């Protein structure tokens, strides 16, 4: 075409693209800033813990042996819940935790990859055989929260769930060994 009078000058195109790139850059920077700000001021981070554990001997000895599962309040007041995720159940099936106190949840799997989330909270992690999945959190509301497996782990996957029972801190009464169990309704 010989008549090019209606074509847009290239500098306009460049100007528009630079403007768009600047806008996208601002958005990316804002998103990263929000993530960093949340991590620093609200203590909300992606759970990250690299800790090996032997899945073949998980249930025989050590931290995840049957007698060590569930919630324990240590002498210094720290609350730790140890849970095994296995096809197709969680052990224990109910986890009691105190309200408004820092809680450490530790998960391990002896068989396949599982995943957990606790409804209404930001707790969400994968449970990979050979590793301990650890999440620090604080439960703000009392009540029963559902904790389903959210990673397809086999034919019984949909039946694999547990309860997290958040109790008022005053109602959490550890036994001699510091163990806390769910209140029976």
């Amino acid at each position, binding site marked *: 075409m010989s*008549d090019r*009078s*209606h*074509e*847009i000058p290239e500098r*306009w*195109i460049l100007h*528009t693209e630079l*403007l*768009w790139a600047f*806008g996208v850059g601002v*958005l990316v920077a804002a*998103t990263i800033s*929000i993530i960093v700000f*949340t991590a620093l001021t*609200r*203590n*909300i*981070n*992606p*759970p990250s813990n690299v800790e090996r554990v032997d899945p073949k001997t998980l249930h025989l000895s050590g931290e995840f042996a049957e007698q060590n599962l569930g919630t324990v309040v240590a002498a210094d007041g720290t609350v730790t819940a140890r849970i095994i995720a296995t096809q197709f159940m969680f052990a224990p099936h109910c986890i009691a935790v105190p309200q408004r106190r820092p809680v450490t949840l530790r998960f391990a799997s002896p068989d396949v990859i599982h995943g957990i989330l606790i409804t*209404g*909270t*930001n*707790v*969400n992690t994968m449970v990979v055989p050979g590793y301990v999945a650890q*999440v*620090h*959190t*604080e*439960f*703000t509301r009392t009540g029963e929260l559902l904790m389903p497996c959210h990673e397809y782990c086999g034919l019984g996957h949909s039946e694999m769930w547990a309860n997290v029972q958040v109790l008022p801190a005053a109602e959490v009464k550890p036994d001699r060994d510091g163990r806390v169990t769910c209140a029976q309704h």
Partner: protein
Amino acid sequence: MPADQPRAADNPFEEPDDIDEAALTAVLRTVPLGAAVLAGGAVALLVLAYLLIYLWIFLPRGVVG
């Protein structure tokens, strides 16, 4: 014209171009603005949804790490 001969109307490139050049120039000047408004609006909606989810759902769900 024989029936087996192609006619001018069969080939759009051979159609006479009766577009007003001035009108075409005016349209092409506003097209990038329209594209920018459409793309900008779509991105703005996504950012708004992200911020609402962040403020109303993510933050109230509390500490995790």
